[in-house]
């Protein structure tokens, strides 16, 4: 089961079993945003409280597989209390981590939408999130891992307007 251990690292299963920041926040001041994985029905709902360019609070709900729920949980922990600019970099770095294989699955040659390639993300520390790297060996599951991040991006775009 070596492939599986790669996918389901202990820290992932831990976030899956004990998700951080579950719950809701009053809307407003929080902004609510949700997303689906059209292929499997997984659902991520984020409540984002952004103030003065900071993600002051975040809560998550929704349902899905271990990977999507762990990714959501790890993301919430990673962005809480961070400046929006830093979160934006984190999103790009995470997507870069996932991107080679995602674009392979999509059939494109790496040029499809991801702008991570051209940016220097060497300095970004992903910490625990790096445990999700094993997902790239399971292309179908990449969308599970990136779902929360796409929803986050959408939420930040909407609050920025």
């Amino acid at each position: 089961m070596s492939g599986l251990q790669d996918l389901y690292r202990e820290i992932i299963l831990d976030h899956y079993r004990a998700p951080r920041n579950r719950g809701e926040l009053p809307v407003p001041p929080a902004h609510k945003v949700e997303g689906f994985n059209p292929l499997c029905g997984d659902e991520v709902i984020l409540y984002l409280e952004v103030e003065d360019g900071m993600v002051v609070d975040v809560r998550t709900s929704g349902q899905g597989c271990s990977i999507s729920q762990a990714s959501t949980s790890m993301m919430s922990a990673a962005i809480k209390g961070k400046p929006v600019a830093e979160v934006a970099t984190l999103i790009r770095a995470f997507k870069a981590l996932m991107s080679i294989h995602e674009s392979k699955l999509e059939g494109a040659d790496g040029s499809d939408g991801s702008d991570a390639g051209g940016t220097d993300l060497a300095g970004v520390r992903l910490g625990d999130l790096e445990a999700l790297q094993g997902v790239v060996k399971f292309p179908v599951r990449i969308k599970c891992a990136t779902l929360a991040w796409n929803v986050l991006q959408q939420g930040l775009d909407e609050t920025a307007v």
Partner: protein
Amino acid sequence: MSTTALDVARIQADFPILRREVRGRRLVYLDSASSAQKPQAVLDAMDRVYRESYANVHRGVYTIAEEATTLFEAARAKVARFVGAREAREIVFTRNATEAINLVAYSWARANLRPGDAIVLSLLEHHANVVPWHILREERGIEIRWIPLTADQRLDLSDLDRLLDGAAMLGVTAMSNVTGTIVDVARLAAAARAAGAHVLVDACQAVPQMPVDVTAWDADFVAFSSHKLLGPAGIGALWARAELLEAMPPFMGGGEMIRDVTTDGFLTNDIPWKFEAGTPAIAEAVGMGAAVDYLDAIGMDAVRAHERELTRYALDVLTDRFGDRLRVFGPAGADDRGGVVSFLFDDIHAHDVSQVADEEGICVRAGHHCAKPLMRELGVPATTRASFGVYNDRADVDALVAALTKVEDFFSI
């Protein structure tokens, strides 16, 4: 190993992909409800077209064009006979069941439905029999009424008369691809007719699993796909009564579907070609014909008996082994369901179940199975689904049980 109605070992030998291994383990394919594997006879029939008789159909007078046309139309006749159509021209080849239903929505429904007209669907429906009607609703302002479900996911027909009252169409699946529920189509069609409604049957799951006689159903439209029927993807069929097809306006425009074209307009061709614009999937039609020949040789009564026995076995061993930790949807008895077993396993998400099962070479589907209204009704985002084809036997079910034990171990660490 198998004690079902079929000689499964012999059948398995007909399917080349079943000799494949995944990570050193034999492939246990339990996803036929999504798409079935193909026997050698189907692959050979298609290959023969390309090697010996490939040409566009209905167009050339030269020998190979004539051969291709004869093979193509013979395939239509086989498919027609297989589902009990009165005439070959009642079969329109489409890309898949989805296009067959969209054809009804774009041609018949747009010509016949007015704002406020009602369509009755069931909560078992696959997206293929939901979304075309949502699109039409947005465009035309029709009403969609839903047949509710009983606690074991049969159709709850207690309010059927009221639902059908004044309805223009009933659209219903003959067998659910999630719960396996078999629907009494003839009874529903009779009720719909009595109420003056047309009847569209999504027979995508039924045609591969049981004897189907569209004439006996007395429906108006029946949609199904080749790829679930041991045939290639890329082709499916709409059966409809000839008079209806004749009265319907064309759907797509192009070559083949015309009798004449000028700069001012066009005349349509005879049915079924009126609905087959452009070059069709030629080898695929022939492959679909070979697939129904293959199933005919087995006999659809035997196929149904096999599906029932295997389903009963699966329901029994899953309950025996996992008890309440495994929740199966759909009717309890195998008589009322096809070869599909959808379940929740503890609180482990279907994706994770399927991923671990894959490690053992087992192919089961995880997800919403293109039936999100039903999933909402079940109150779950996704299920794990095992579904059976003529090539599955009890050993495959046993392999699934063994894999689920590993899933349990893995996620309880």
